[in-house]
């Protein structure tokens, strides 16, 4: 499978994880999109440097072709999948730890590491 196909698949997979598996519904939340707007700005900056300076070089046969700030557009899908999976997992871990504690259950998630 080429990069383009994998990138699309990753976005779909992450949406399923967020909406169906974890049910964290991050992509339906204002707080997520506001954070993502900030993150994607820095992503374009960093990715632009990485690809502009040829730190990473792509095989032209594996991408669609269009580029934003030197990077293939697929990188935006890659980044979205990566950030969304991370933030949904973060929400799931926190929700699980807090809910379990409220019910008085011990979990293998340490209740707090905040001292």
């Amino acid at each position: 499978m080429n990069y383009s196909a994998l990138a699309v698949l990753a976005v779909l997979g992450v949406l399923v994880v967020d909406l169906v598996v974890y049910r964290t519904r991050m992509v339906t939340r204002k707080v997520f999109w506001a954070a993502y707007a900030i993150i994607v700005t820095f992503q374009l900056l960093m990715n632009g440097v990485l690809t502009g300076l040829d730190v990473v070089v792509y095989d032209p046969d594996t991408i669609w072709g269009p580029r934003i700030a030197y990077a293939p557009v697929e990188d935006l899908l890659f980044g979205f999948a990566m950030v969304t999976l991370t933030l949904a997992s973060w929400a799931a871990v926190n929700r699980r730890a807090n809910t379990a504690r409220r019910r008085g259950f011990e979990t293998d998630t340490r209740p707090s590491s905040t001292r």
Partner: protein
Amino acid sequence: MGQLTYLALLVGCVVVTAPLELLLRVRVYARWRRLLLAVVPEFVVFVVWVLYAIAEGHWDYSGERTLGLRLPGGIPVEEVLFFLVVPLCAVLALEAVRKVTGWDAGYPSPDDSPGSIAARNERGADRGAESGTGIEEAER
């Protein structure tokens, strides 16, 4: 900057986002065990993806702009760090936005309000953690 280019970018990400923890007190570093747990799925999926991409020749890394330390599968050590540093920054950004706006993220914040259930539980859990292992300790 030559071989330090990629590494310097990663250090830059950590340095630029650190004030969110220090000044805005978002308590992400403070909850580092939860952070590590939350990063696991992302780390596994994307490292596997990169290994596949390298094997298939989808992309490759400059030997002049990286340290040149390649781990098994040909993945540069910076690329592995990338999948730890970027999630850290992303979580910091989310918590910062939440702290500033107060918008719901679907789970209680440790500092929702002094009287909130989440905050009380946080304090209760802290006391439990200090006295030992919590429930098991109390049953003995």
